[in-house]
């Protein structure tokens, strides 16, 4: 056995072990059911039919046949009860549990890995695939197990039957099996080739579909009446291309299909084997003619089961492929780990960036170059700059979502790597630019934790400060109101501005030393922004604050402003200092403020 095969088996075995651990009863009984079912089929169609025919042919008393058949009926009925119990109860309960066991493993890992992994599309696609396919793999595994044991049982039982009756029959079955295996392989590889050829075209079709059915494009399509013409032209062309691929392969496909469906199946069993049977019965008188029917159906069934059995290994390979992906994902070691376990200072302390450089991907160049800054405790720092200057990346480094390629970040004079990551982050309150409202209650959304993790009073205070209070009062269930319509049809959907206020409440609630805000007021109208800025400052009196904003009116109140350009700090100082410097900041300020004066 090659190393590759070994891996296939061990991967399948591992998944099976996981299933067994989550639900041993279901795992074992589903195998029992596969065997039971095949035994019944054999007892009815081969052994039973043969027995009754023999009773008739050799004139045995009817009682014998009747007792046998009634016994068989009782056995089948009992078996069907087992079948119903297995599929209507046990499976219904076991499958969600097994899938949960698998997914929990993946989810726990997802929490642990570095954010960097999400930036790598290749990795990310693999992960998404592993997660989305995890459930299907469990179903596949049980399907595979069923085929395996059905096939084995059939081969053993039918095999015994033919050895007892007519071993030559084996030859026919074997030839049919091998032939269909070979042709089947050719068919599969042709289909695979066609699928691959069609793939890029189908992607394009899906795109056109999307443009027409997504709400996002609906307005554009209506207002720009000509735009759909081009899309439809593309649509036509792609369809022609797909048709051309089918036409090109039609002939080969036709003959392969004919070989597969007729010659390898029907022809060998119903023509060649049948002639052999008739010859054996009518000319050689080697087998009784009532036996002909039994042997024909048994041979046909055995051939089909062998075919099914031969599919087991490819199925295992397929499962193994996904298990590999899951393994690969689980094997990721996060780079951002706590290198020490120093206690986080209770109160805000100095944060320093020393010659920090960073690139998401060295190939694409550095986003931050040699950045140094010192943030005094309790100070209010603003970071400003053009789109793409590296502002958001900078705060991601401070949050330790990434580690710098060069240079270091120090908290209280100690490299932030020396602190426990989770503890370090717990002391930072933040609102991301792309903040998310979760499908949970208002309170849970503020806590980002279970309801009992915090007091209502404190949550209400935070909500009051963030300006969400008015909206809260309009909610029937107050803090317990369910947000989003994901779970509850009567859940509340917040507008962008309202959502942002709620997200800001999270920061007010959190007992953090430092608050980091990335464009917190972008979705707000002017008055709401004004209120938010005010309350932000009061709430942050005894905290350090770093904020990014395009609106210089927001940033001017900072103790110190850093102006970024192309990943470097080009100017720093208070608003007044920068203003008198008459550099880029002053220019930007004038552009914005000039219009108000």
């Amino acid at each position: 056995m090659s190393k590759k095969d070994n891996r296939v088996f061990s991967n399948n075995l591992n998944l099976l072990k996981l299933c067994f651990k989550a639900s041993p009863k279901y795992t074992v009984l589903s195998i029992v059911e596969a065997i039971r079912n095949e035994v019944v089929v054999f007892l009815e169609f081969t052994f039973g039919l043969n027995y009754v025919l023999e009773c008739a042919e050799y004139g045995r008393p009817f009682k014998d046949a009747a007792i046998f058949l009634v016994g068989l009926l009782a056995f089948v009925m009992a078996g069907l009860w087992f079948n119903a119990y297995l599929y209507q109860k046990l499976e219904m309960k076991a499958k969600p549990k097994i899938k949960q066991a698998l997914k929990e493993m993946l989810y726990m890992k997802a929490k642990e890995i570095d954010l960097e992994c999400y930036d790598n599309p290749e990795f990310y696609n693999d992960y998404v695939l592993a997660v989305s396919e995890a459930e299907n793999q469990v179903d596949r595994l049980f399907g595979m197990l069923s085929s395996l044991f059905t096939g084995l049982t059939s081969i053993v039982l039918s095999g015994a039957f033919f050895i007892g009756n007519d071993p030559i029959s084996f030859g026919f079955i074997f030839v049919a099996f091998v032939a269909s295996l070979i042709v089947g392989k050719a068919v599969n590889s042709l289909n695979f080739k066609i699928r691959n050829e069609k793939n890029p075209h189908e992607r394009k079709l899906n795109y056109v579909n999307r443009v027409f059915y997504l709400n996002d494009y609906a307005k554009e399509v209506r207002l720009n009446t000509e735009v759909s013409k081009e899309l439809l032209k593309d649509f036509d062309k792609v369809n022609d291309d797909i048709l051309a691929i089918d036409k090109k392969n039609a002939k080969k496909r036709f003959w392969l299909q004919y070989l597969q469906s007729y010659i390898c199946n029907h022809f060998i069993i119903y023509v060649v084997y049948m002639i052999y049977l008739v010859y054996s019965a009518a000319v050689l008188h080697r087998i009784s003619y009532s036996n002909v029917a039994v042997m024909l159906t048994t041979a046909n069934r055995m051939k089909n089961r062998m075919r099914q059995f031969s599919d087991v290994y490819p199925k295992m390979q397929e499962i193994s492929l996904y298990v590999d992906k899951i393994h690969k994902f689980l094997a990721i070691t996060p780079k951002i780990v706590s290198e020490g376990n120093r206690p986080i200072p209770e109160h805000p302390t100095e944060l320093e960036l020393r010659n920090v450089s960073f690139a998401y991907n060295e190939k694409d160049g550095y986003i931050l170059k040699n950045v140094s800054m010192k943030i005094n405790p309790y100070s209010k720092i603003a970071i400003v700059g053009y789109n793409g200057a590296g502002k958001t990346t900078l705060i991601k480094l401070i949050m330790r979502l990434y580690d710098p390629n060069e240079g270091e970040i120090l908290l209280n004079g100690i490299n932030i790597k020396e602190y426990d990551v989770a503890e370090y982050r717990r002391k930072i309150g933040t609102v991301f630019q792309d903040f998310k409202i979760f499908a949970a209650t208002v309170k849970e959304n503020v806590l980002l934790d279970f309801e009992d993790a915090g007091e209502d009073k404190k949550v209400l205070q935070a909500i009051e400060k963030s300006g969400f209070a008015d909206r809260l009062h309009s909610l029937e269930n107050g803090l317990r109101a369910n947000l989003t319509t994901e779970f509850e049809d009567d859940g509340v959907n917040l507008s962008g501005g309202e959502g942002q206020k709620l997200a800001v409440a999270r920061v007010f609630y959190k007992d953090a030393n430092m608050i980091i805000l990335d464009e917190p007021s972008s979705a707000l109208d002017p008055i709401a922004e004004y209120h938010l800025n005010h309350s932000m400052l009061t709430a942050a009196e005894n905290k350090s604050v770093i904020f990014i904003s395009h609106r210089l009116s927001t940033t001017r109140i900072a103790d110190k402003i850093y102006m970024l350009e192309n990943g470097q700090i080009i100017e720093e100082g208070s608003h007044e200092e920068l203003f008198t410097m008459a550099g880029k900041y002053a220019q930007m300020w004038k552009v914005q403020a000039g219009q108000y004066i």
Partner: protein
Amino acid sequence: MKENKKNKKSKARVFANNSYAVKTVWEISKKRVIHTALYSIVGYVEWIFMSVFFLRYVIHAIETGASFEKALFFIGICFVVFSLFAMYGSYMNSVLIPYTNTKIYRELYKRLFAKARNVELRCFEDADFYNKYTMALDGAADKMTKSVTFFFDVIFGVVAAAVAFSSMFFIDPYSVLFVISPIIGNFVFGGLMNKIWGGRYTDNVKNNRRAEYVNRVMHLAEYAKEIRFSNIHDLMMNRYNESVKGNQAVADKYAKKAIVYTWAQNVTTFALVFEGIMIYAAYRTIISQTMGLAELAIMFTAMSTSSWILIGMFNDITEALKNGEFLEYFRTFMEYKEKISENQDGIIPDTKVHSIEFRDVSFEYKENEPVINHLSFKIEGDKVCALVGHNGAGKSTIIKLLFRLYDPTSGEILVNGINIKEYNLKAYRKLFSAAFQDYKVMAMSVKYNVLMGEEFENPEETAEHALQCSGVWEKIQSLPKGMDTIMTKEFDNEGALLSGGEQQKIVVARAFAKKASVKVFDEPSSALDPIAEYELYKGIMDESKGHITLFISHRLSSVKDADMVFMLENGTIIEEGTHKELMSKNGQYCEMFTKQAQNYLADESFGKGEISHE
């Protein structure tokens, strides 16, 4: 009783829907329908022949001592016939089906697209309607053709079952009675089981939605940061756990009944029939000796074939019922009567817009929740007008009403003094160009994204100029293929991935490029930095000659130079005039402007803790 009636009605509807599918496919490809029918017949003929007549003839031949040659001759003929059948099947599967699939797909989706473009925007925003529509789109061609297959399989299945039964009848009239058992099994217990499946599905909808949501939170990049900064991960795991528990509870709820029905269904369709007929046949052969061995063997296979045909038919009907639901959505969508048809004909408007007037316009998305409230205003001449106001004041809705993406609930909108409903809609919309807040770029070239398929005398220059106006020309020039660069990596690995701000600028360029009499900019700077924003508004002002300009902005500084400012609140205009006029009025606009400006002015008291909540 009532439910029964409803049930009957819905069954009739399902049948109607399936015939609708056959009709639709027939319109597109007659060949496909005819061959599907033929293929179904061939399939059943082969099945019944092989399991009933073939074996019967051969065994009979041996039993009665006919010559081996005769049997061989018969097998030979069968070989020729079925070989031809198989060739036909192969032709069907590798030539006819793939070819017609593409044809059907193309035609069907073109119809869907045309319809999607023709229904009013409201349908897209109505979650219920939209869900049904996306369901109609999802695999429509596949489901349509499947419907045709089910249709014929059920029809010919009935015939095939009749043939199989009658062949049994000729062997033994009483044996046909055994058919009652699988019929009861499938239709009574099978029907009951279907109800249980339906109940389980409905009860689990919520649980599954939960699990799917948690799954999304766990793997989408946009949630990853939040997970690292909070305990939300555990909360979500807890939700997932609840959903699994919910699944288990549903399983328990139906377990008893489901086990009994499934068991009864299987016993009546399989066990009673097979074992029953064997006992009966054994009795006839051994005791009353009224049946030959060949007949006994045949009867057994014929019986099992009949049962399988019945099972197959039952499954087909179940599938057809499921498919019928999809067809219902498809049909509802296709037969939906547009309230604002995109193809609506009418007066061809003058290409020059002299005036726009809203006359006591009210509008509501949902009943009794008015978004626009008795709104009246008039714009005359090529002016620059700004709409300002709080979030949710109804600014974007006014734009949608003006474009006739919606019709007002009451009141009327006049362009050049004529109600806009009177105009030919396509021609009317050509009067406008727009940059929407929720900008979307298409996976096509930059140039195409700007020109959007419109005809221009000098397309290159027009696009270049427009990109310059929106401030992204330099960036586009720096791309290897310039304006011919394909946007997004969707199809082209060399496609350009531009930042949000750059994408927005490209979308805004559309409005600059299109020769329109009214240009609308809905928050065109939401993703831009201050300098870019400033330049963009400068561009809008510079280009404002010769047409009406309408823009929406939060940032009041950009509004100052507008000829006319409309301040909105709760869906109606509360103040209007020039910036100067409004400032001297000392009203809401003035307050809003002052608050924004405050920070830019040298107000020393600000930010030193003197905070009040008005």
